[in-house]
């Protein structure tokens, strides 16, 4: 197996707001190997975006604050780097695609110039080489190089997102973090973007973290998946194992909630209740108020991370033998 490119260890991020302290990410540990694509899945407030921002050291402070934890990139602890050193990595060796292609581009700069800026800064290219590079990158994402002279408003949403991807890839990053890269796009345009991302992975061996709420995208584009709930990873494993045998009650609940176009289900089985208040998270297991399997112990004790099989983790007391589990039948 390839070696770890990114290691997140015991990351904890808080937002200190007027309404109280919000623990956005708690005790997060994840590894990403070279050439691998990890899907980070969860609903609003699960801590997906904050985790990504913490890797990039872009958590807005204040109100955000990284309380503890380390992020090792290629063996180097990013939290110990000086701001200037971090700037050499950000946008260069690690880059990010943002959710909203409407707001993540500079509206008063041509798209070509925006890409040139990145390569001039990071790759120390002169303007002429940078221009050529920008044209090359646009072509790679299916935009004619001549359009480098156009401004963002002259592009459609799908094309703007492709510009964002071109910019993110312009410095050949080793790690690409894509935060809901297709959420703002129509499904046929989403298909174009996913296809492009898959091609990049095979051609350049880029490692990726794809943040999404869409399990379909994970099944299609990822190798590993981490399911997050209320700031913590509740289940982690290969896409194959998690999709074929979801272990955590929340993961099972998610699968029961989505209408699947390939299956006929009369009625969905939603997860009861609401996302917890982030300033007042439930004690014990954070999912217990909504969990159909919960027992008393779930409200008093925090579940440890179990490893039911190699490369698979789950944070649920069923797998510690403390709570009765599902019957022998497979997959809810």
């Amino acid at each position, binding site marked *: 197996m390839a070696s770890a490119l990114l290691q997140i260890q015991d990351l904890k991020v808080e937002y200190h707001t007027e309404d109280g302290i919000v623990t956005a990410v708690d005790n997060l540990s994840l590894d990403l190997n070279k050439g691998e694509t990890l899907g980070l899945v969860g*609903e*609003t407030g699960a801590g997906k975006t904050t985790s990504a921002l913490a890797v990039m050291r872009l958590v807005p402070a204040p109100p955000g604050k990284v309380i503890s934890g380390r992020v090792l990139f290629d063996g180097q602890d990013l939290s110990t780097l000086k701001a200037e050193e971090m700037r050499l990595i950000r946008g260069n060796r690690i880059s990010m695609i943002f959710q909203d292609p409407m707001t993540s581009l500079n509206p008063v700069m041509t798209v070509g110039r925006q890409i040139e800026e990145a390569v001039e800064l990071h790759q120390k290219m002169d303007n002429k080489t940078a221009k050529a590079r920008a044209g090359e990158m646009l072509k790679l994402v299916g935009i004619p190089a001549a359009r480098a002279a156009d401004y963002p408003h002259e592009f*459609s*949403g*799908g*094309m703007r997102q492709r510009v964002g991807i071109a910019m993110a890839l312009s410095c050949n990053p080793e790690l690409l973090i894509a935060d809901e890269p297709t959420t703002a796009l*129509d*499904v*046929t*345009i*989403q*298909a*174009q973007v*996913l*296809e492009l991302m898959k091609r990049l992975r095979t051609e350049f061996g880029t490692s990726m973290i794809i943040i999404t*709420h*869409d*399990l*379909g*995208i*994970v*099944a*299609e*584009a990822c190798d590993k998946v981490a399911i997050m709930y209320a700031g913590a990873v509740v289940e982690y494993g290969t*896409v*194959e194992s998690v*999709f*074929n045998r979801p272990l955590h009650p929340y993961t099972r*609940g*998610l*699968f*029961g*909630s*989505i*209408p*699947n*176009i*390939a299956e*006929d*289900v009369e*009625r*969905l*089985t*939603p*997860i*009861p209740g*609401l*996302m917890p208040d982030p300033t007042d998270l439930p004690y014990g297991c954070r999912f217990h108020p909504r969990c159909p399997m919960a027992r008393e112990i779930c409200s008093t004790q925090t579940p440890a991370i179990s490893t039911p099989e190699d490369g698979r983790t789950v944070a649920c007391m069923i797998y510690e033998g403390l709570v009765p589990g599902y019957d022998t039948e497979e997959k809810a």
Partner: protein
Amino acid sequence: METLLEVRGLKKYFPTKGGLLQAVGGVDFSVKKGETLGIVGESGCGKSTTGRAVCRLVEPTAGEVIFEGEDILAYPKSKMREFRKHMQFIFQDPFASLDPRMSISDIIAEPFDIFRMYKSEREERVLELMRVVGLSRKLVNSFPHELDGGRRQRVGVARALALDPKFIVCDEPVSALDVSIQAQILNLIQDLQDKLGLTYIFISHDLSVVKHISDRVAVMYLGKIVEITDSKTIFQQPEHPYTQALLSAIPIPRYGEKRERIILEGDVPSPIDPPPGCIFASRCKHVMPKCREKAPALTETASGHSTACYLVHDVSEEEE
């Protein structure tokens, strides 16, 4: 089943600086009593405008909307206002569709306050509606900002039910919600239909959701319906090349799902001065010369299955 609503030749054009924007370029469909017709398509295809035009929330440019035998587009304003009791609307964004300065009870009661109904039993009626949509009665005096998206959408549903309508247009009612909450609202919408015998038009860009909730599905592209049939058939035997591409583009949440994907080149053309001929011709890989000359009509190819494409028509002609 009896037909509740019949739409014929419905058009809605918007004047813009660049020319006439044909948001809805002439659509025909009918909805039977108690059924759900899904309308699906990508942004700018005219699905929301169709829903709004049917309720006259925007005045259609042309066409007929026949509701229980009467063309409601011919109604004068006063009669239309009275008639609105029977057709209601659930909006996409539960954050924008509720007045932030009104309490939940005032929002739910506003429809019958306007029609001067349930005067003496206003509070009971509000609580009854809250119970029906699964809102705790404790929230009766809360304000929208105190509620999360799922609960807000329940308020929107309660308001739509306030006047006992026969027909509701649901415009992307779950698109702004998280998946676990989305499932709760979809179940609620289904349960209400069973209990109250409601008829729905359900508009969404999400084909999985539309397939799940609809009896029949209409696929729209650039202001036109390109295909309409029952929801099973549209997913098993889509006929129009656009429907086929749309279906193949959906990522399926199952491991190892391998399908042939039809990647559409380019973007949707502008609805201002759309080209003559088939609206899909510029992106269609089966395009033939005649597609660029004259638009194919929406034609029934099998019982209850209509498609607007020469490919399908020719095939059916050959077989005859």
